[in-house]
C-alpha cells in the first residue's frame, strides 16, 4: 500500500500548481492591479520550479524559472501584468504541462515561447513607469530547518542565496545546537542561521524564500528598529506612528522570545507554520476499494437483518439494528469523503473560454455559479468531457458574432453561464448562453434528411431538442476546428446516460439556450424502495419516489387504455410494470402506484406490493445486458437473491412520451 511513486506525487502536485497558476492568470487578466493575485501566481511558479528541480524535472524547472523571473518583476512593481505578458505565460503553461508529464520531451516550441515572454517583458520595460521604490527595512531572520531536510534535498545554502537576492544580507551560521561527535547523526541538520537583511521587499517576500520548508521549520522574522539617519526616514516614521508601534511590538516580542529560543523550547509565539497536516491526500483507488467493502458490508448487513427478522432472539435483533445504524452511517460518511466541490471542474473551463473567445473573435463573458456544490469525485472526472462539448457548442454555435449581436440589439459581449445546484438527490449542472437559441426548424429538417425521424412526424419541442444528441447530428454549415463535426453531443448523451443522469434542453429563439445535466449524487449505494411485481422483486431509488397510492380494482378497470391517474387535480401517466415485464401472473388485488419524479416530470409505476426500504448496493449489469434500458443495475438482497434496479429516468421518459403522444393526438 505504501508504494507511492514520488514522481506520480510530483505530477499531481505539478498539475495542481499549473491549475492554480492558470486560474491566477485568468483572474489577473480582469484585475491586473491585484497584488495578492500576482503574489499567488509567483508563489505557485516558484514552488513548481523548486519541486521540479528536486524531482529531477530540470527542463521544467529551467523553463518555469523564466516565467517566475517575469512575475518576480511584476511583484516587485518593476513591471505590470499586461495582457501580452499574461498571454505569454498562459501559452508557456501548456508547455510546462508537457514537461511535467514527460521530463525528456523534446523542447520544441519552448524557445519560441520564451522569446514571446521576453518580448512581452521588453515591451514592459519600455512602457515602464517610474516606480517609487518602497522604503528599506532591516529584518532579523532566524531559522532552523527540520533534521531531515538535507536528506530530503533541501539546500540551505540556496535559501541563503535567495535571501541575499532580496537585499543586503549579513549571514551568520549558528552551531550551538550541533551535538558532540558521539551524539551526532551526520546526515541530520542541526545548523541554524541568523540573517540580518536590509531590503525594500515586504515580509511576504522573505517568507516566500522558505516556501518549500515552511511547514516544518522554525522561522522567526522580526523587523529591526529603523536607523533614523535620514531626515526623510524620520519624517516617515513620524507620519506613521501606527507602523512604528507595530515594529516596536515585533522587536519587543523578539527580545522576549530569545531565552525560549536558546533553550530550544518550542515557543507558541514564534512563526511556526503548521498549515499542512489538515488534509490527507489519498489515491482515489483506495477510496474505491473502501467503498466496495462498505458495499459488501451493506449486503451482509441486510442478510443479518433478514435473519434477525425471522428469529425471536431479542439480543440478535438489537445487535442487528445497531449494525444497521452503524453501517448506514458508515455509508454516509464514505459518500461524504468522496465528495469534492465542483469548482475543481469549473475552473478548467475558464481557460477554454479564453481560448475560444480568441479563436472565434467573439467577446465572451464566462460566469460560474454554485462552485461549492459537491459531487462524487468519479462523477466530476467523467463530467469534464461532456461539459467541454457543451461549452464549446454554446460559444461556437450559440453565441453570435459581436456585429450580429449588436444588430439584434444585444450587448456585444455574449455570456456563457455555467451553474451547479443540488436538487434533491441530484445535482443539476446548467450551461446557459444568451445566443440565438436552437433553430428547431433546421434541426427538424436535418433529422428528416438524415432519416432520424419520419417526415412530418409529430414531435414535441423537447423531442426535437433532444435530436441534437443523436450520433452524427450537426446543423452547422461550417465545420470549424472547434465544433460542428457532429461528434460531441452524442458523447455528451452517452456519458450522462452512463452516469444515470438526464439531459434537458430548452431554448428560446433569439434569447439563447439552456442545457441542464441532471446527475445523481452518488453512483454506488442508494436508498431504495423494494417492490414486488409478479414474482420478481425490484428496487426503485427512494430519492425519486414522491408518494405511494393504491390503485383500486375500480380505478384499474376504469383506466384501462388510458393510463392516467388524477393526483390532486393533476394528470399523472402511469405504467403497468406487470405488463411491461410480462409477468404472466394475475394482478394483486390491491395494486399500488409508486409515483416517481425526475425534476418536474412525474410518472406512476404500478406494482403488486411494496415490500419496504432497502439499502441498495448497486452492481452494474453485465455487458450483455447493457442494452436493457428499463434497468440501471442490480442488487443482492438479504436472502442472496437478485433484485433489478429500475431506471427511473428511462421510465419517466417512457411515461411522458405516452402522455405527449396522447396529447398530440388530441
Amino acid at each position: 500500500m505504501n508504494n507511492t511513486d514520488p514522481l506520480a506525487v510530483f505530477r499531481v502536485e505539478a498539475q495542481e500548481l499549473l491549475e492554480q497558476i492558470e486560474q491566477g492568470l485568468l483572474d489577473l487578466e480582469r484585475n491586473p492591479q491585484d497584488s495578492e493575485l500576482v503574489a499567488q501566481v509567483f508563489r505557485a511558479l516558484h514552488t513548481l520550479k523548486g519541486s521540479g528541480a528536486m524531482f529531477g524535472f530540470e527542463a521544467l524547472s529551467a523553463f518555469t524559472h523564466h516565467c517566475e523571473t517575469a512575475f518576480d518583476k511584476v511583484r516587485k512593481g518593476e513591471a505590470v501584468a499586461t495582457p501580452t505578458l499574461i498571454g505569454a505565460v498562459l501559452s508557456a503553461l501548456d508547455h510546462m504541462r508537457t514537461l511535467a508529464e514527460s521530463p525528456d520531451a523534446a523542447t520544441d516550441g519552448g524557445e519560441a515561447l520564451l522569446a514571446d515572454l521576453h518580448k512581452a517583458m521588453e515591451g514592459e520595460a519600455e512602457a515602464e513607469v517610474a516606480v517609487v521604490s518602497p522604503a528599506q527595512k532591516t529584518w532579523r531572520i532566524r531559522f532552523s530547518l527540520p533534521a531531515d531536510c538535507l536528506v530530503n534535498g533541501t539546500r540551505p545554502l540556496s535559501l541563503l542565496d535567495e535571501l541575499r537576492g532580496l537585499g543586503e544580507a549579513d549571514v551568520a551560521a549558528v552551531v550551538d545546537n550541533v551535538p558532540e561527535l558521539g551524539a551526532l547523526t551526520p546526515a541530520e541538520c542541526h545548523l541554524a542561521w541568523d540573517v540580518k537583511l536590509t531590503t525594500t521587499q515586504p515580509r511576504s517576500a522573505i517568507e516566500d524564500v522558505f516556501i518549500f520548508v515552511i511547514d516544518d521549520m522554525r522561522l522567526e522574522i522580526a523587523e529591526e528598529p529603523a536607523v533614523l539617519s535620514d531626515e526623510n526616514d524620520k519624517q516617515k516614521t513620524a507620519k506613521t506612528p501606527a507602523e512604528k508601534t507595530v515594529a516596536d511590538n515585533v522587536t519587543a516580542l523578539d527580545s522576549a522570545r530569545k531565552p525560549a529560543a536558546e533553550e530550544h523550547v518550542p515557543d507558541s509565539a514564534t512563526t511556526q507554520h503548521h498549515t499542512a497536516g489538515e488534509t490527507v491526500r489519498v489515491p482515489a483507488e483506495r477510496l474505491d476499494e473502501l467503498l466496495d467493502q462498505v458495499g459488501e458490508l451493506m449486503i451482509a448487513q441486510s442478510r443479518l437483518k433478514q435473519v434477525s427478522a425471522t428469529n425471536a432472539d431479542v439480543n440478535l435483533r438489537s445487535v442487528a439494528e445497531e449494525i444497521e445504524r452503524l453501517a448506514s452511517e458508515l455509508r454516509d460518511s464514505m459518500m461524504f469523503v468522496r465528495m469534492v466541490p465542483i469548482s475543481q471542474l469549473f475552473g478548467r473551463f475558464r481557460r477554454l473560454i479564453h481560448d475560444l473567445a480568441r479563436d472565434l473573435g467573439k467577446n465572451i463573458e464566462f460566469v460560474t455559479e454554485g462552485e461549492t456544490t459537491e459531487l462524487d469525485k468519479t462523477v466530476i472526472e467523467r463530467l469534464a468531457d461532456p461539459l467541454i462539448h457543451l461549452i464549446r457548442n454554446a460559444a461556437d454555435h450559440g453565441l453570435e458574432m459581436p456585429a450580429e449581436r449588436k444588430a439584434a440589439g444585444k450587448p456585444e459581449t455574449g455570456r456563457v453561464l455555467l451553474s451547479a445546484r443540488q436538487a434533491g438527490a441530484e445535482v443539476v449542472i446548467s450551461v446557459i448562453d444568451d445566443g440565438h437559441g436552437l433553430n428547431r426548424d433546421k434541426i427538424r429538417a436535418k433529422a428528416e434528411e438524415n432519416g432520424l425521424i419520419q417526415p412530418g412526424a409529430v414531435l414535441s419541442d423537447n423531442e426535437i431538442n433532444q435530436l441534437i444528441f443523436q450520433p452524427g447530428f450537426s446543423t452547422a454549415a461550417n465545420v470549424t476546428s472547434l465544433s460542428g463535426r457532429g461528434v460531441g453531443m452524442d458523447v455528451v448523451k452517452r456519458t450522462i446516460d452512463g452516469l444515470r443522469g438526464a439531459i434537458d434542453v430548452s431554448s428560446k429563439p433569439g434569447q439563447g439556450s439552456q442545457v441542464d445535466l441532471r446527475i445523481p449524487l452518488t453512483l454506488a449505494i442508494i436508498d431504495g424502495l423494494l417492490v414486488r411485481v409478479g414474482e420478481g422483486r425490484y428496487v426503485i431509488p427512494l430519492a425519486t419516489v414522491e408518494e405511494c397510492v393504491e390503485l383500486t380494482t375500480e380505478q384499474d378497470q376504469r383506466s384501462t387504455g388510458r393510463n392516467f391517474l388524477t393526483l390532486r387535480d393533476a394528470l399523472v401517466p402511469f405504467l403497468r410494470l406487470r405488463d411491461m415485464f410480462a409477468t404472466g401472473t394475475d394482478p394483486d388485488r390491491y395494486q399500488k402506484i409508486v409515483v416517481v419524479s425526475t425534476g418536474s416530470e412525474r410518472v406512476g409505476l404500478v406494482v403488486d406490493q411494496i415490500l419496504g426500504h432497502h439499502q441498495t448496493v448497486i452492481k452494474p449489469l453485465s455487458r450483455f445486458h447493457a442494452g436493457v434500458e428499463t434497468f440501471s443495475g442490480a442488487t443482492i438482497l438479504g436472502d442472496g437473491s437478485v433484485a433489478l434496479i429500475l431506471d427511473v429516468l428511462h421510465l419517466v421518459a417512457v411515461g411522458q412520451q405516452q402522455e405527449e403522444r396522447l396529447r398530440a393526438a388530441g
Partner: protein
Amino acid sequence: MPSDSCLRISLSGDATIRGIGDVHQKISSALHENEEVEVDIGELADFDLTFVQLVEAARRTATNTGKKLALASPASGPLLEMLQRGGFMRTPGGADFWLCGRGGA
C-alpha cells in the same frame, strides 16, 4: 604546530551526505584516541554542509574534552566559498579555525 602526540589524518573521497558516515567514524576514532588531531582536507573530492557540520561537532567535542583539533592547511577554493556562503566564518572561533589562524584571507 603539531606536536609528537598529534595524529594527522588525511580525508579523501566523498564527504557529502552520501559518504559522511565514514568521515564521521574516522574523525571520531582519531579524536577519541589522540590528544591532538590535525586534519588534512586537501584530498577531499567532494563535500557539503554535512561535512562542515561534522567538523563543527568535532570542534565542540575537542573543546569539551580538552583536546586539540586543527586543519592542516587553511580552507580555500570551493570549501572557503561554501563556508562564506553559509556564514560559518561568523561562528565563534570559526574564522580562526577554518583559516588556521590566518584570518583575513
